[in-house]
């Protein structure tokens, strides 16, 4: 009976594995993301990833993460990327981190009620690493859109900055709708 229970468990695991879809990539294959060459008629956006607030509150962050937080807070320097048709903020961020071999973990849009990708961590700096009000936020052209990162459709010449906040955006000058 115990053997039968084990066989049934293994069959269920195999089914979950097969039906969830299988796409295996080696580390080099995954990071082999070529950025489109910028031409005269390309639509472009600029992207920067910063963790300034994390550098100001290092005492709250576990010591094991300190080596991965740059002293100047710049995780990815400002750079221009080609904007493809229908690209969202997440598409640009994903392409950029893969090209620059940065670690990123995110939750797919199908796993939350907001129907948007949720960025959990970049370069091992995760939500709640700097306290219960910490996490990643993004601004486009100086404003914080109140929609998910994979729902915001970009336009030509947009400027994206992905910030780490330790105080739900208040340390970045953002006030939530309810507080206004």
């Amino acid at each position, binding site marked *: 009976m115990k053997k*039968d229970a084990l066989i049934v468990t293994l069959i269920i695991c195999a089914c979950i594995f097969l039906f969830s879809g299988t796409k295996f990539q080696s580390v080099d294959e995954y990071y082999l993301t070529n950025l489109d060459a910028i031409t005269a008629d390309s639509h472009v956006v600029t992207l920067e990833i910063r963790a300034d607030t994390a550098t100001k509150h290092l005492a709250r962050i576990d010591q094991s993460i300190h080596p991965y937080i740059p002293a100047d807070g710049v995780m990815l320097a400002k750079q221009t990327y080609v904007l493809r048709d229908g690209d969202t903020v997440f598409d640009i961020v994903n392409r950029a981190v893969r090209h620059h071999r940065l670690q990123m973990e995110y939750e797919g849009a199908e796993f939350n009620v907001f129907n948007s990708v949720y960025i959990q961590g970049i370069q*091992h700096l995760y939500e709640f690493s700097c306290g219960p009000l910490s996490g990643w936020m993004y601004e486009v052209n100086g404003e914080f859109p109140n929609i998910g990162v994979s729902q915001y459709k970009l336009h030509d010449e947009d400027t994206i900055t992905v910030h780490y906040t330790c105080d739900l955006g208040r340390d970045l000058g953002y006030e939530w709708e309810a507080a206004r």
Partner: protein
Amino acid sequence: MNSLQRFHPLFLLTYYALTIGLASYMMHPLVLAFALVMTVLHVALLTSFMQAIKDVLYYGIYGSLLAVMYSAFSHNGITPLFFYNDNAITKEAIVYGAMLGMLLVLLVFCWQSLLLTMQTNHFLFLFTRLHPKVALVFIMVFRFIPYIREHWQQHVLAQKGGHYFETTSRFDRMGRYATLQFHTLMQAIDSVMWKPTVMNSKGYAKQRTQFQLFRWHVRDTVIVIVTLGAAAMALYSVPSFRYYPATDSLTLPPHAFIAIIILYALPVVLEGKEQLSWYYAKSNM
């Protein structure tokens, strides 16, 4: 008889709560590995080595499954091995999953060790003074599964004698096992449900107390001091082990190691000493 049963039930409950709680809290690989080896040895000394090894292999498979599945949910770690559906499967996540699997197997064996050591009368003694209903709830919770296992083995042997499982279809045999399990479970629940009525009729709910079989001795004081001292030393000296983003190196200061040995090897040393004395005495007959 289990050598730990000489001690007061309060110490036994405290000891098992401490060992399980500390291992779960510290999550240090060396502590988990040592605790698992000692607990398996203790169960092996009380039952049989072959059965303990079979159980380790059986539950180890579930632990390994947990290790593999965990890496599908956590993608932190500086060492990606490969990418599955655009998510990194990292060495650190696999290591943490393996430790969770080891903790699961440890919990199973700690539970077996606890049930082999603490009988119904231990629970009745401890909790009847608090409230008879609390005692009954604990007995139902702790003794329910061993009760089912004992009766299940009897029922299976009886049905095998009647050729109940002799069918050519594997699935038919599985269905008959499932039916027999259902009936065993119903019988166990029925028996457990009647127990409060029986105890109530004997007056346990009306100020009647359990006859005190267990008295506090000097040896209980000594072992409590030793155990609490070792637990405090372990809590203070075992460094917190980080799995992310990079796994820490496997080191333990010597005093932490001594504390862990004292805490987790205690049942094995006591039981081993008793069994050696027994075999020596038997050899002289």
